[in-house]
Structures are given as C-alpha cells and as structure tokens.
C-alpha cells in the first residue's frame, strides 16, 4: 500500500476513529450496566481469584528474604505493574481471543462490510467491565508495595511508572492481536495464545533474573515482556541489575510491538479475504 497520507489527514482519521471507538464502547458499557449486580459479583470474584497469584508470592517469601535478588516488596511492585498492564489491556482488547467465534458466526463479515478499520471494530466490540476486578487487585498490590517500599520518587520516576503501565498494556495488546491472527488460519486455536498472554502475565510478575537462558530469550526479549515491568522497575526502585538504556527503552519497544502487530493483522485480514470460507 503506497498511498501517501498527509499528517493532517491522518490526524483527522485518528480523531474520527477515537470518536467512533468512544461511541461503540459506551454502547457496550450501557449494555453491561443492565446486569450490574451480576457484573459486580463477577468483578469481586475475580478480585479474589486473581489474588491467588500474589498469595503464591507471599507463601514463597515465607522461606527466604530475596528471590533472584529481589525482596518481597520489590516483587510486589513488579507484580502490581505487570498486573495493571495486563488487566487494562485485557479490558480493552482481551475479547479479541474470541475472534474464532466471531468468524464462525459471521460477525466478522459484518465488520468487513462497515466503513471502519477491522481492528478498530473488533477492539470496540466489547469492553468487559468485569475485568476491572483484576485491575483493582493489581492496583491494590502496587499501592501496598509503594507504601512499604522506600522509593526515592522523582518526577521522572512517576512518569515512568505511568508510562510503563501503558506500554505494558500495549505490549500485551500486541500479543493478544498476534495470537488472534493465528485464529484466521486455525479457528479452534484460541487457547494457544493463552500461553503468551496469561503466561506472559505470570512471567512478568517475577524478576526475569530467576529464569533460565531459554525462557529469558523467548519471554523477556523476543516477546518483549521484560519491558512490561522488570526493566523499568529497576529504574524506579534504583536497582542496577541491567544497563540504564534497557530500563528506559520500554515505551519505544511497546510502539514497535504495536506497529508489528498491526502490520501482521492487516496481512492476516487480507489473507483471510483471499482464501476465506
């Protein structure tokens, strides 16, 4: 595709897309709000269910003071940041794992017949409020960690914390999108992506230093989950496990990851339209 779009035109397009997204998502929220008691129970339930992962960390740390050189509270910070990144992403785009169902039910044909981008429409097709349960749980752990740790806060560190959570979400989003692209080819395969989305969350909740060489290569660098929490957190907590540039380059990695996933998605849709069913 070699169409040249001027900066102003792309800004307009962006604005329109954002507006459209807002309207569609508001509709989804309104639809869910009709069942708000069930929704609340779900959210509370998942708050406690997701707490179990942190319970594991607590249980383990009864037996030693440091894991991979990190203390319990430092790991809690990692856990909170990674968890927030994941859950916010899950909230916005987690439902893309149902792409196989969308295709099977013909809903993706409807997407193709409408005057908006396919990925935008799929993203806007849901906004599962019940996933706020995990978000709140991660936030709780993060706040606990912040309160207990003696962090020397600077403006840069505060900005980096927010930036890390957002870029963490973006990195997870790219994994979700890439996982969904597989479903264009193998429709029943939605669970495979779980290994890298939920698995990715599990991985990034712990210091990368505890993992062996191969796991590190695959999960921390190739799939850039190291940048979801581990590297940036070092800067915030004043640790020097890894060089400074690694600690700060997270947002750039996120942008690259998102770009890559959009490209792969575009190709996947084109391929689906050519070979279809």
């Amino acid at each position: 595709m070699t169409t040249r779009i001027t900066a102003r035109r792309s800004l307009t397009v962006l604005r329109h897309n954002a507006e459209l997204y807002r309207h569609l998502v508001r509709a989804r929220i309104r639809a869910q709000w009709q069942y708000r008691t069930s929704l609340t129970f779900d959210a509370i339930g998942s708050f406690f269910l997701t707490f179990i992962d942190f319970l594991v960390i607590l249980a383990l740390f009864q037996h030693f003071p440091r894991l991979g050189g990190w203390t319990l509270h430092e790991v809690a910070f990692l856990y909170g940041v990674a968890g927030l990144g994941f859950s916010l992403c899950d909230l916005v785009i987690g439902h893309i794992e149902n792409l196989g169902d969308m295709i099977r039910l013909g809903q993706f044909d409807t997407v193709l017949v409408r005057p908006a981008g396919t990925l935008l429409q799929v993203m806007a097709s849901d906004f599962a409020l019940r996933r706020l349960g995990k978000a709140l749980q991660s936030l709780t752990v993060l706040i606990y960690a912040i309160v207990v740790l003696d962090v020397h806060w600077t403006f840069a560190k505060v900005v980096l914390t927010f930036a890390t959570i957002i870029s963490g979400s973006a990195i997870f989003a790219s994994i979700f999108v890439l996982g969904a692209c597989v479903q264009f080819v193998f429709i029943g395969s939605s669970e495979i992506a779980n290994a890298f989305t939920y698995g990715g969350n599990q991985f990034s909740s712990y210091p990368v230093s505890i993992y062996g060489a191969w796991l590190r290569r695959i999960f921390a660098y190739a799939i850039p989950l190291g940048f979801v929490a581990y590297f940036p957190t070092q800067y915030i907590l004043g640790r020097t496990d890894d060089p400074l540039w690694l600690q700060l380059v997270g947002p750039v990695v996120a942008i690259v990851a998102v770009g890559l996933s959009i490209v792969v998605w575009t190709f996947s849709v084109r391929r689906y339209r050519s070979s279809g069913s």
Partner: protein
Amino acid sequence: MIEVRDLKKSFVVYRKTGTLRRDRTIVHAVDNVGFSVAPGEMVGYVGPNGAGKSTTIKMLTGILVPSDGVVKVAGLVPSRQRVELARQIGVVFGQRSQLWWDLPLIDSFDLLRHLYRVDVASHRAQLDECVERLELQEFLSTPVRQLSLGQRMRGELAAALLHRPKVLFLDEPTIGLDVVSRSKVREFLGVLQRDRGVTVMLTTHDLGDIEHLCPRLLIIDQGRVIYDGALAALRDRFEPFRTLVVDLAVAAPAIVVEGAEVVRVEGPRQWLRFHREHTSAADLVARVAQQVELLDLTIEEPGIEDVITRIYRGESSL
C-alpha cells in the same frame, strides 16, 4: 452501478482421507460470472444451495477478494476500496443480525449514524421515513434481542438504509418471516426501488419475492450464470406449456382436440395442456366448445417455482 466480468473464485479445500493424509481439492465456487446492473435496477439472484450466490455477494461487498476477473460496484473496486465502498452500500444478512443485541433498536440506529458519519439532520429524515414505512414506531425502544424475527428484519432493513446507500444487497431477507412481515418488507423494497432509485440485489430462495419484486432474474448454478433476463421471458422460454382448465356440464371422458393434451380428469373438470406458441388459448377454447358443453374455464400459467425447480434439476436445458 454493478459491473462484473469474468469473475472467478476458487477455494482450496482439504479433506481428511485416513489418519494423517489430506486430500487437496480446488473448488470453483464462482466460475466465470459476468453481468451488469444499471443504477436503480432491482435484480433477483437465485440458485440452489452451494451455487455460488453467497460467494458472489461477498465479492461484491468486499468481504472476499476474487481469484480473477473484474468487479466494480458504484465505480469502486470492492477488494481494494473496502471502506469507501462500505459507505455506498447497505447489506442485510437474513440469517444473522447486524444490530446491537442488548440495546434498544433506536440505539443501534444512533450507533450506525456515528459509524457511517451521517449528519444528524439527514439521519433524522431518513430514520423518520423508514420508521413510518416499516412501522417501527412501536418497538423502537425494545432491545433487539426481544424482537420477533419480523420486527428485527424490518429494523435491519432500516439500519441498512440510514446512510442512504446507492446499492443495497439483501441476502435472504424474508427467510422465516410470517406472511404479514414478508409483505411489509416486499412493499417497502418495491417503494424503495421505484421512488429512490436504489439499486437492489436480492438473493433469495423465496420465489415469491422474485415474482413480486424483481423484473430481472439472474440464475446461478455451479458457479455459472445460466440465465440473465426478465422473469416473464424465463417462463416463456422454459415452461412453454399453459393449461386450460375446463368445467364441463357433464362428466365425460378425456376430450380429444387438436393442439392440446388432457393431462388430468376429475369428474367434470379436465386439464388440457397446450404449447403457448403452437396453439392460442382463444382457438383452443373455441375448438373445445365445439365438442362439449362448457360451464366454466380458466387458464393456468406455470408457477415460477416449477420453472426454476426444473432448471435446478437440469430438466430444462439452456
């Protein structure tokens, strides 16, 4: 408005033969289809299951990319200009909904306004008209999931037209509808095409739809267009026989008369089949009246269903 030339679409289909081996076959769903639809025309697109109807429509609407050939809808190439084309077309799928399930119908209309970027005034005007014509007023605030099929289909039609598309694609819109809803939909479509000049392409199994709505008929079978023309001409061409039904004063054995053949006798009523080109109805009636005393008579035209069924079954050659 719609231009199709040498259109082809092939799929690679894998079938398992044994535990590990796979059989690779190529299915030609659409095999050299060509036709043209002028602006404001209403065309019926008919064919047996698996004939390639849906595949053609999918290529016209941008869902599928053709394997070969030329497709142009409203001057745009669907496979390359999907989004722009989407603004010019409306699509209604009979078997699945494009509305927002949990929300009132009116909310779906509002969301579509944002989706298609229609200005408020124009949207309002079009909406009011659709609501009036399709009688949607009573259930505008009902969640779509609570609507009956007939109500939902009317809603889908309105939804497909809110952005004033130039072309409307309908895929089995009357399937499963009760008689009242079906006639409302047909009436609406008829008005739409006459007054507004919307080009309509209607895929259907319901030949009643065709009879009521489509002056032009495209029949597709095994990926090829086997008929493209007026409905009346189809009847003339493939079902050349008409039937004269006579009620005799007294029951009698089968009449022997030149130019016709008795195909059925029930008491005093007899059915005489005659070829429309070889024998005129008036002459035949005269000849029959010479032989027996007639009380009453009617002329039956072959049903379009019969004609098309026979074509599907290959009993009528083209």
